[in-house]
């Protein structure tokens, strides 16, 4: 779950991390009020769960409350990365001495949290890593001990800071770590963390992603921020509610499979035979008839779909249940496009028998099925 900048900063402030004075606004008028409260030139920043906001024109600097109102109006009307701007954050415009990068994420190779810092912030860590890897300081966090204050200071020292700034900057790492720990954060970044010309460190930006698998532990927080974990369309929401992985793509063939790897491989096969997938739909493990029916229902709701490919490799999932699900979708008239079925594995014979009795054809290999569905789509077109 990605948090908006202003939501992340609310958490930062609750953990006593210094952030620029300011507040969120949902209307141009509110933006004006916030700017008056700040009483200095402000930044007007689009609140949107997408990167490269600055390049898209989503950040503007206003010298007066009137200007802030005007920019807020413009930005609130924007879409960035195809997402609407829900709000703007009005914050004091800082006088910058240095832009710093700090962040914590999960290192999947070491299976540990990793703390990352660079005195050369302001750009994405990927670009930084490519251009100046020596400027990136990394430290793994001991899973038993957590990040210690002395380690946070060692980060600041390694980043080149001296004197009082060692502890000042170190405290940002410690606070970030406490937040990571409290909120099951899988990625957090402050970029830039600004050292102002008058010597203050302030978290000027904030990125904070909570591990989706941990959300059950953070229901109080999710209710408090009064929004859904993710912006979703109806189909995506239905899939989430049914615990299915669902991604919409640009093609026209819906691939309904069990298992993420198999679903991806099915998309690849469709592509290999000249087709293009509209839908990645992973039913997950052990889908029963109802679940299969629900998966087909969701897939059919997406207007781009011109054919469905069901590719099941039965493991926990039983082919007889899959067949029953398909059958009741047919009976209900859900499926209004060509359907190709490939189904092997657990209870394969029972499943195939059900389809055979209902007069529904099926195939034995995924290559046959992929090539067949591509063929059918071409006929339809």
């Amino acid at each position: 779950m990605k948090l908006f900048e202003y939501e992340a900063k609310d958490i930062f402030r609750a953990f006593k991390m210094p952030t620029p004075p300011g507040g969120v606004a949902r209307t141009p008028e509110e933006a004006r009020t916030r700017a008056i409260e700040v009483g200095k030139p402000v930044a007007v920043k689009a609140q949107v769960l997408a990167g490269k906001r600055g390049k898209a024109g989503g950040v503007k600097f206003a010298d007066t409350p009137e200007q802030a109102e005007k920019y807020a109006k413009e930005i609130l009307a924007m879409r960035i990365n195809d997402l609407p701007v829900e709000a703007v954050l009005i914050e004091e415009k800082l006088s910058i001495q240095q832009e710093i990068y700090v962040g914590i994420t999960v290192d999947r190779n070491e299976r540990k949290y990793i703390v990352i810092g660079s005195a050369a912030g302001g750009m994405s860590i990927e670009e930084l890593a490519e251009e100046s890897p020596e400027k990136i300081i990394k430290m793994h966090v001991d899973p038993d001990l957590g990040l210690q204050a002395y380690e946070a200071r060692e980060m600041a020292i390694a980043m080149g800071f001296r004197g009082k700034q060692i502890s000042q900057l170190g405290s940002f790492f410690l606070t970030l770590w406490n937040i990571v720990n409290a909120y099951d954060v899988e990625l957090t970044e402050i970029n830039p963390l600004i050292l102002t010309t008058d010597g203050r460190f302030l978290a000027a930006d904030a990125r904070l992603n909570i591990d989706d698998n941990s959300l059950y532990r953070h229901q109080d927080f999710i209710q408090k921020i009064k929004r859904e974990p993710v912006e979703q369309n109806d189909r995506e929401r239905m899939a989430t509610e049914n615990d299915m992985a669902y991604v919409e793509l640009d093609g026209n063939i819906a691939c309904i499979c069990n298992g993420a790897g198999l679903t991806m491989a099915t998309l690849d096969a469709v592509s290999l035979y000249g087709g293009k997938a509209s839908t990645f739909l992973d039913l997950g493990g052990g889908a029963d008839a109802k679940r299969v029916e629900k998966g087909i229902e969701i897939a059919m709701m997406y207007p781009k779909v011109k054919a469905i490919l069901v590719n099941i490799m039965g493991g926990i999932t039983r082919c007889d249940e899959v067949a029953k699900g398909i059958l009741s979708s047919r009976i209900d008239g859900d499926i209004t496009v060509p359907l190709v079925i490939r189904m092997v594995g657990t209870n394969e014979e029972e499943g195939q028998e059900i389809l055979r009795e209902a007069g529904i054809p099926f195939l034995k290999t995924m290559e046959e099925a992929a090539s067949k569905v591509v063929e059918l789509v071409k006929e339809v077109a």
Partner: protein
Amino acid sequence: MAILVDKDTRVIVQGITGGQGTFHSAAMLKYGTKVVAGTSPGKSGEEVHGIPVYDSIREAKEAQDVTASIIFIPAPYAGDAALEAIANDLDPIVIITEHVPVKDEIRVIHEAKMKGITIIGPNTPGVITPRAKQKIGIMPGHVFAEGDVGLMSRSGTLTYEIAAGMTNAGIGISTALGLGGDPCVGLTTIEAVKMFKEDEDTKALVLVGEIGGDAEERAAVYIKENYDLPVVGFIAGRTAPPGKRMGHAGAIISGSTGTAAAKIKAMNDAGIAVAEKPSDVARLLKEAM
């Protein structure tokens, strides 16, 4: 010998009275696995398919000789179950559960590592050694024929797909291993390759990868330098658009690493033949062996 699981493995099923635990205990028993005990707090004294149920692993160990564990506990409690298994020195510990919070995974993997215990998963179909007729997992046993090719994968059903293709082509498997689909898993790809390298019964490897992370790239480098027997690869997600989350967390493309192209290139650089379709794996294996 194969790896991880053999005739001496004696398994306890954590969460044996749940739907999945019950179903797969039967399947494992049927396949030949020595499932000797199960846990379900509060249900000590019950039986599942004749397997005695205990309130805790500690209690089970007092009554039964158990060496390994398979965990069918819901995600919020899976970490605790794994720590219980670690505290009781079970090895390997196979965590079937998906959606385990990464913080819990990190903790469990670290504790296991400190004791030298192998964690397989989470979010794995488990491990199977056809020759010994032993599986600790949820894979359909009949798909895996006895043989001398080691198979490892981060994906469940895709593994069955490829194993089925191999079986159809008359190629058998020493041990097949689901490494788990989460970003953080216990046994890593490179560690699995090392295990297979030490196994006399494994004469070739199939490495099934998917987009996200750089486990395959790392394994490829290791293979290039250390592994002399034939290796065939497959990577799922060639056509996945960047930045889209495809099913499990393992399949996120982040930055310039982790793309299918990068993985395939790394494998090719290591002399690993990479199949375009799952069914090509068997053919490439035959060519290589």
